[in-house]
């Protein structure tokens, strides 16, 4: 597993900074997120109080298509899908049912799905998107940051996309210039939002 390139916690209190470094480390490890984060900067100021977490993720796997998880074998009156990776089998079946109807989709065993359709285009089936892992991943990431942040910071603003994310939280109204603060933190990591 690759280590995180940049990981800093800043806070005016030394003891608090060390505890939160450990907390962030444990939470990200527990949620299996260390392998997707490239850079992470957390800043906690209990005096305001304000919590800012900014980060950059590694390249996130693209949209997974039917062709990525199954071999598509087109015969005259049916199409056989041999499942290679059953991780996404449930969403795949859901999509196939919606597309072709439940009565046409047969699953004789765990690793085989048969579509009773005629004249199908194998290439077209292979291209059906099954799931976009980045969506779930960013949600997990924001959830993990909510676990890391001190509890009770109910006012928050979050953003994710284009391999960057941030979360700003406080128990009071967020400062008006919080976007500038976020940009400053990105600059500390040598990145721009």
């Amino acid at each position, binding site marked *: 597993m690759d280590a995180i390139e940049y990981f800093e916690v800043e806070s005016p*209190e030394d*003891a608090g900074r060390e505890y939160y470094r450990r907390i962030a480390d444990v939470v990200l490890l527990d949620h299996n997120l260390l392998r997707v984060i490239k850079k992470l900067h957390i800043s906690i100021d209990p005096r305001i109080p304000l919590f800012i977490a900014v980060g950059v993720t590694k390249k996130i796997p693209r949209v997974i298509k039917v062709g990525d998880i199954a071999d598509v074998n087109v015969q005259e009156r049916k199409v056989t899908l041999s499942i290679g990776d059953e991780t996404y089998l449930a969403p795949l079946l859901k999509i196939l049912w919606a597309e072709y109807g439940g009565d046409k989709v047969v699953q004789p065993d765990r690793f085989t799905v048969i579509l009773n359709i005629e004249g199908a285009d194998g290439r077209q089936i292979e291209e059906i998107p099954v799931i976009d892992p980045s969506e779930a991943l960013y949600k997990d990431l924001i959830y993990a940051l909510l676990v890391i942040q001190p*509890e009770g910071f109910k006012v928050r603003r979050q953003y994710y996309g284009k391999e960057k994310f941030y979360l700003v939280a406080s128990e009071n109204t967020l400062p008006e210039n919080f976007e500038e603060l976020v940009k400053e933190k990105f600059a500390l990591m040598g990145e721009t939002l």
Partner: protein
Amino acid sequence: MNLVPVTYKGGIYRHDEIMDLIEDLGGYIIQKHVLAQEVVLQALVPREDIELIARIGKPLTGEITPSPLVGTEIAVVTMSLEIHHLPHASCDVAEYVRRMGAKTNMVGLARGFGKRIAQLNDEERDVINEHDLAVYLLGDFETCIEHKFPVLRRGIHVPIIVLGGPSTETLMRIIDPPVDGYVGNVGRFMHRTKESEELEMLDQVVTEITRVLDKKREAIAKDPPSVSPARLMDIISSQVDEIHEVLSPTPITVQMTGLRVKLPYDRFAPLLKEIVIEEGITISEVAEILPSRMRDYILLRIKPFSETNIMV
């Protein structure tokens, strides 16, 4: 007779003999756990008979160890019951203290989190005040602890021990007026305490609790309760049959100067009042019978000797 709190651990085989022995010697069994082939008894026994129990228990692979927290009920006050504090920190402390013999209850505050927004409501305050001692688990930042703690201690009159992330010295500095005990470096953390230095930290918590409770015991000894809480427990459990149908691990919880009886107040309070302890002295003469804020339980506060002039 001077009763001391002990824990007896031994095999399940013939453990009833040990239970009979403790009762015959004039001791009281506060709680009994059966864990597969092992029995753990938390009991109060006469100091001079510990040797005897150890000798009789030896062939039954029994071990007797002093555990100063037996017979106390401790509130572990956690700022919320969210994932931020559970299971680690809150449960780790509560469970460790429980292993030392105390009955711990976790009090999760509805709005204990945050700095400005932290608050304590009347129910939480009353529930905490029903215990012998309150252990407050606070966070990692001294700024927040300094700001919010005065709100969280308002109206609490039982001894308080503060646990927090900053060092013990810092906690002592920022908390004013002082509380009864402090343990630093036990703030918010998200991992299980299993390394030796972390267990040492929990041992420090137990030491601090023991120290504060010993001080409280000394104060109580100057004006002792009219009847020993353990004896009262014994009397209630022998005279009120319904208590044996209660499924809680401790249907009657022993405190330092009282009892929590886990039966509905409305039905059983009049019944308890009339129970005779000895020579016509009823419970209502030596104790206040109050409704507990915890569910519909009954809380017995035993009056001190100076108030009743009765010692049974």
